[in-house]
């Protein structure tokens, strides 16, 4: 009944807004929107397709996109055909994705050319479901000119980075214009997905793991050390406002030349090097530093994909469009704006390297990138991620309010571990109660039998 209502309402909307439009979602972050518009125009010109394509912009925070998709897809909405999805979404929404095998064919050469981590994400149960637009790995951006000015080399460890940033911050603040507005490092610590990424990056560089052998391991010594390092960064070399900063807030501060270091995604490279910014050509980039001499350089894996909703009425056209938009040529074109290609061969392409001399660093970072535990948490990933960013945000906030030394990091992390373990167990959770609805249904025409077991496979096969 509820579904009918939703369908009725969306049907009205669609009739009102021309049924033939192909709708595609896009994050309006950086210049993604502009690139998508150009890509679509090219596609129309090259294929002579008559479909009108309508772009729907998404919220900045990826967990808000996730929430939006959750609402659309579970309502069976057919007003969106192509969805732009984060790495971690593709697995979580696999039930709603249209298998693309019957619409497009994938070159064997192309297939081998994808990074393995990317290919893992493109296929679900051996069906092709997603095409990578670009891949992403968190990098550390820094001010080359400032490091040179104070006689430093690229830091290899977080400890070196902190000492360096502290010194530069203290010196730069002597300039009255910078008095309270210059920071050693600006990082995303707002309670949202990116804080989870940052936490995982820190933990990985200190040699810890969020999930180890099927259990949460966030209370290990390495994790405690990693969080203490975050607290140190926040209290000594950063602004307290980072607790409410997302990627774009950080980019704003960094671009105005008010920070030495900033972890962020590669899209920043091209934007921050734009001649209109205060830091053009003064930026360096490197993988995230290691946590001490025994730690490893790290990077958190990201990346966005195009998928087709199984409710789409334009499956063939949609599949054709996304294959075009994610082709090697398009990825090559995107790469000049700093979007990292998902094809390995492009990292040897002179055109790509000309625009991105740092791509060798990116290739290296992608090589030892750490993935977020979405495979472990699956459909409960957003809950797990939200527990992580909530706990870390709380720890960081407390460290400001109570003085950094008094926060009991270990206690908080043990609590987080318990929560994560509970979420891990939820996956196998069977139904708790006696089917009141099933009973109701059996009275009003028992069509619901075996729906539980068949639902999933029916959805995957996408009929």
């Amino acid at each position: 009944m509820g579904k009918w209502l939703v369908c009725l309402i969306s049907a009205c909307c669609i009739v009102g807004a021309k049924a033939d439009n192909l709708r595609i979602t896009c994050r309006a972050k950086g210049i993604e929107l502009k690139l998508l518009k150009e890509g679509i125009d090219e596609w129309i010109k090259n294929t002579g397709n008559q479909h009108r394509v309508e772009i729907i912009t998404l919220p900045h925070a990826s967990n808000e996109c996730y929430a939006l998709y959750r609402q659309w897809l579970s309502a069976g909405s057919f007003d969106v055909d192509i969805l732009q999805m984060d790495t971690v979404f593709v697995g979580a929404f696999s039930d709603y994705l249209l298998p693309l095998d019957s619409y497009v064919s994938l070159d064997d050469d192309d297939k081998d050319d994808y990074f393995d981590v990317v290919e893992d994400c493109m296929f679900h149960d051996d069906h092709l479901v997603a095409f990578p637009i670009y891949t992403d790995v968190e990098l550390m951006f820094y001010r080359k000119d400032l490091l040179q000015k104070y006689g430093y080399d690229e830091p290899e460890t977080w400890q070196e980075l902190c000492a360096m940033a502290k010194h530069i911050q203290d010196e730069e603040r002597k300039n009255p214009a910078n008095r309270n507005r210059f920071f050693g490092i600006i990082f995303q610590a707002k309670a949202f997905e990116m804080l989870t990424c940052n936490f995982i990056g820190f933990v990985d560089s200190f040699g810890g793991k969020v999930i180890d052998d099927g259990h949460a391991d966030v209370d290990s010594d390495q994790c405690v050390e990693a969080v203490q390092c975050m607290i140190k960064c926040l209290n000594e070399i950063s602004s307290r406002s980072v607790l409410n900063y997302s990627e774009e807030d950080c980019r704003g501060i960094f671009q105005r030349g008010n920070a030495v270091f900033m972890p962020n995604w590669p899209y920043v490279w091209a934007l921050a090097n734009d001649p209109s910014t205060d830091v053009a050509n003064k930026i360096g980039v490197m993988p995230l530093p290691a946590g001490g001499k025994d730690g490893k350089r790290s990077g958190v894996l990201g990346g966005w994909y195009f998928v087709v909703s199984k409710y789409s009425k334009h499956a063939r056209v949609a599949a054709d469009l996304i294959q075009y938009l994610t082709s090697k040529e398009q990825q090559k074109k995107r790469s000049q704006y700093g979007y990292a290609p998902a094809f390995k061969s492009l990292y040897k392409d002179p055109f790509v390297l000309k625009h991105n001399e740092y791509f060798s660093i990116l290739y290296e970072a992608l090589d030892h990138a750490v993935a977020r535990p979405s495979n472990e948490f699956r459909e409960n990933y957003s809950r797990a991620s939200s527990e992580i960013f909530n706990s870390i945000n709380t720890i960081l906030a407390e460290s400001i309010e109570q003085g950094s030394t008094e926060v009991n990091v270990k206690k908080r992390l043990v609590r987080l571990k318990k929560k994560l373990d509970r979420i891990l167990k939820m996956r196998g959770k069977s139904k708790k109660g006696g089917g009141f609805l099933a009973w109701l249904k059996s009275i009003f025409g028992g069509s619901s039998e075996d729906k539980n077991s068949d639902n999933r496979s029916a959805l995957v096969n996408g009929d």
Partner: protein
Amino acid sequence: MFSIDNLRIRKQKVSAASFPHWEFLAPCLFILAVCAGWPLLRTIFFSFTDATLSNLSDASFIGLDNFVDLARDQEWWQAVFNTFVIALVSVPLETFLGLIIALILHKNFRGRSWMRAIVLIPWTIPTIVSARMWAWMLNDAYGIINDLLLRMSIIDEPIPWIASNSLSIVSIILVDVWKTTPYMALLLLAGLQAVPQDCFEAADVDGIPMRRQLTTIVLPLLKPTIIVAMIFRALDAFRIFDLVYILSSGNSANATMSVFARRHLVDYADVGFGSAAATTLLFFVAFLGVLYAIFYHAKIKKIGLD
């Protein structure tokens, strides 16, 4: 809005024609039932099930489990606490400031009607827009408020208004007060206009100073209006969402009840548990509604006895 004269007239009319005109009410009732009644009932229904967003139709009935879990959830009680803090601080503040503004606007001065319109502006801006606006102004790196305070040497370093957990509640309350004081002023002004003018004239003739007029005439006559207006505002304050969503870091330490419900409903796709939270929130608000009904009733009775 709640003028005494009006009430008296309405009461007579109602008793004269007590026949409810269902045929006139029907379209309105139908729309209410579809837009408000049905979703409401569905939410209450889901709160007794283990529904998730991806499997709404297969949900099974689990009795009161969700409510038991809710009662055990620390974060929920934190959210309840935050909601009460916001409501209990902001509503009296808004009433106080609203009363002052209403008293000023009640006086005769040039451009009074313009002033009345202008005062309403904060209330007419959509909350999400004004919240975003304030978030920019309160930002510590590029916000104008910190910049002004710094330039005036009132503070030495920028204050993280919306980043720290304890301060963001203060910011939320301040912005809420900024936004809804005009609404309170409007309600109270309507009440003031219903206070019979001859009381003031008599007081003026007797040479009673303004301050005493305020405490002996205005406040007692305005009391029913104030109480009703406060309950109205409290109903609103209990479901505060947009301000909190924009002005806090998203941490559950400063979530309110509706933010908590949304997180579970949408982010975690746990429709059952989220609905239980939403239903409980509804009961908090309904409780206030009952309070309102009692006061309203008492007021009518009192007037009837006069």
